């Protein structure tokens, strides 16, 4: 008996931790994400190769002779078969080297990190703002379904769902920059330069991205809360015990509904990243989206490839994070009762 206990102690906390249901699931999900990531990079390689005109031609201009183009192709390694180029690229990419842009002659990774910083700040502001507003609004709406506040929230979120973000962006510019002259229409001030300037330059684009998001989250959470309130036994039990209705809503129902909300947030990331491309273009923000569009017009394959992969990887990681958060938060899984 004691020997067994000692042996278990000797094995240490590591083994124990790895055996817990949560970590088993986490490891499983992480392993599942690898083929998806590989698939995404292969797909992006293929998609980028669809774009007509090759880098050699783009670099040398329209007057280049076929001979010159051929030499350049050899230099860039374009003569190798696609799978060889892919493996070559993958080998460098996993070590953080995404190549050197043949157009600007600069290494891509630092450019990408700069862009990613702007884009993630923008997305972070939009996401957090949308969530912080959506949760109380959905709670207020679900407290009395069919009430005045509920109808108002449905009305507002329907507008948010139907307005195209680029239209919203232009309307915001028209109102706050052109008419009221309160906020800058374009440009970006880095956080290191001025905190208030930085926030001012990001607030309109963040609203343009965040308002539709707020609408999606509010609609989903309200619907889920109302469903649970009307159909679940635990709600009836709590109500029968005489628990305050707000407390039932916040402590009981919201906890359950938050799982669905987390999934929605994760699933939306892919769409969201597409949205930033257009919003960054409108507000002239030096983010990943603008880097990508510039690269597309310059036919800079290396940069396009890098941007696409970063976008895709962020999406996969976002989904994974949402997935894991759900798993870890679910007590049925945490305590191994499955």
């Amino acid at each position: 008996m004691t020997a067994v206990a000692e042996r278990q102690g000797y094995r240490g906390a590591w083994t124990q931790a790895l055996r817990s249901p949560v970590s088993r699931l986490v490891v499983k999900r992480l392993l599942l994400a690898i083929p998806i990531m590989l698939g995404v990079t292969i797909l992006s390689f293929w998609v980028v190769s669809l774009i007509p005109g090759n880098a050699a031609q783009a670099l040398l201009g329209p007057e280049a002779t076929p001979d010159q183009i051929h030499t350049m192709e050899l230099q860039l390694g374009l003569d190798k078969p696609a799978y060889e180029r892919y493996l070559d690229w993958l080998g460098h990419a996993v070590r953080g080297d995404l190549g050197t842009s043949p157009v600007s002659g600069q290494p891509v990774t630092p450019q990408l990190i700069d862009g990613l910083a702007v884009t993630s700040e923008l997305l972070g502001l939009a996401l957090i703002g949308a969530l912080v507003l959506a949760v109380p609004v959905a709670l207020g709406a679900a407290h009395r379904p069919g009430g005045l506040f509920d109808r108002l929230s449905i009305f507002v979120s329907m507008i948010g769902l139907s307005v195209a973000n680029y239209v919203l962006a232009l309307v915001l510019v028209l109102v706050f920059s052109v008419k009221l002259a309160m906020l800058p229409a374009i440009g970006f001030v880095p956080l290191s330069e001025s905190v208030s300037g930085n926030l001012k330059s990001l607030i309109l684009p963040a609203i343009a991205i965040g308002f539709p998001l707020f609408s999606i989250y509010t609609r989903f959470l309200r619907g889920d809360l109302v469903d649970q309130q009307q159909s679940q036994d635990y709600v009836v039990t709590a109500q029968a015990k005489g628990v305050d209705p707000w407390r039932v809503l916040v402590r009981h129902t919201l906890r359950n509904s938050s799982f669905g909300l987390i999934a929605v947030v994760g699933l939306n990331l892919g769409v969201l990243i597409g949205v930033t491309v257009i919003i960054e273009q409108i507000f002239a923000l030096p983010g990943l989206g603008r880097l990508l569009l510039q690269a597309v017009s310059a036919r800079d394959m290396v940069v396009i490839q890098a941007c696409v992969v970063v976008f895709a990887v962020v999406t996969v990681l976002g989904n994974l994070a949402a997935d894991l958060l759900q798993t870890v938060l679910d007590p049925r899984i945490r305590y191994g009762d499955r």
Partner: protein
Amino acid sequence: MAIAEATPSVVAGAPLEPPARTWLRRLGIIVPAALIALVVLACFLGPLVLPIPEPTGGNILEAYLPAFSPGHILGTDPNGNDILSRILYGGRNSLIVAVGVTVVGQTIGGTFGALSAYFGGAADTLIMRVFDVFIAFPALVLIIAVAQSLGPSVTTAILALSFFGIPAVARVSRAATLSLREQPFMTAAKLCGTPWWRVLLRHIAPNIAPQLITFAMLGMGLIIVLEGALSFLGLGIPPPAPSWGNMIAEGQASLSATPMLVIWPSLALFITVLSFNLLGESLRSLWSAR
């Protein structure tokens, strides 16, 4: 049909919905459906019936006319083209693309999703993993690449947006089919030796149709917005041909001087998308209430 549905609730003595509710519910379907019909008619028949100038080749001397000018109800753009005419012709393109993507997405995505759920096992895993990759892939990036490689046109826009539509519909169709799989009528059909394609067409399709139609309505709105985004970036309908997206993009250049150039096409876009969303929502609540 309507009588057959109404009678049982009376017979069963179930509480009837108050008339106001029923009316509200009907209005929720009639109003957006009528708006959509209006937009479709205006875009496809309007230019044939009404005395409206061509959307391109306007007189440069008539540029920047304000709204309610004689002959140009909504005024003209920087090239002297009639704005109303451009909105109507642009709406044609948006609607054609939206319907095209919806048809492609529903047929291919719907079939794959249903098959995947029906057969299950390795086929299911493989199909859904492939679609997972597509879903993980940033939609707009894929669309940009396809649009770039094929050159901007209506067909390209349909193809590019289908990449986004097919996996989304497949997920919905798979989820809907999964919930049917254990139903007795499915077992009955299998026991009768019904071939899989017949099960798919006669047993699964009618049952998942409500979910798919609802999703199609919500999807139409989304596709119109995405098509606008594509044109906005200069990758959709090539100018001078009009589309709501490229009209908004052209108007953006002179936003402070002539905001109406942006506002008119934006309004058209907003009303159309809102109608599709409202219709989808109403259909969903109608079908889920049963």
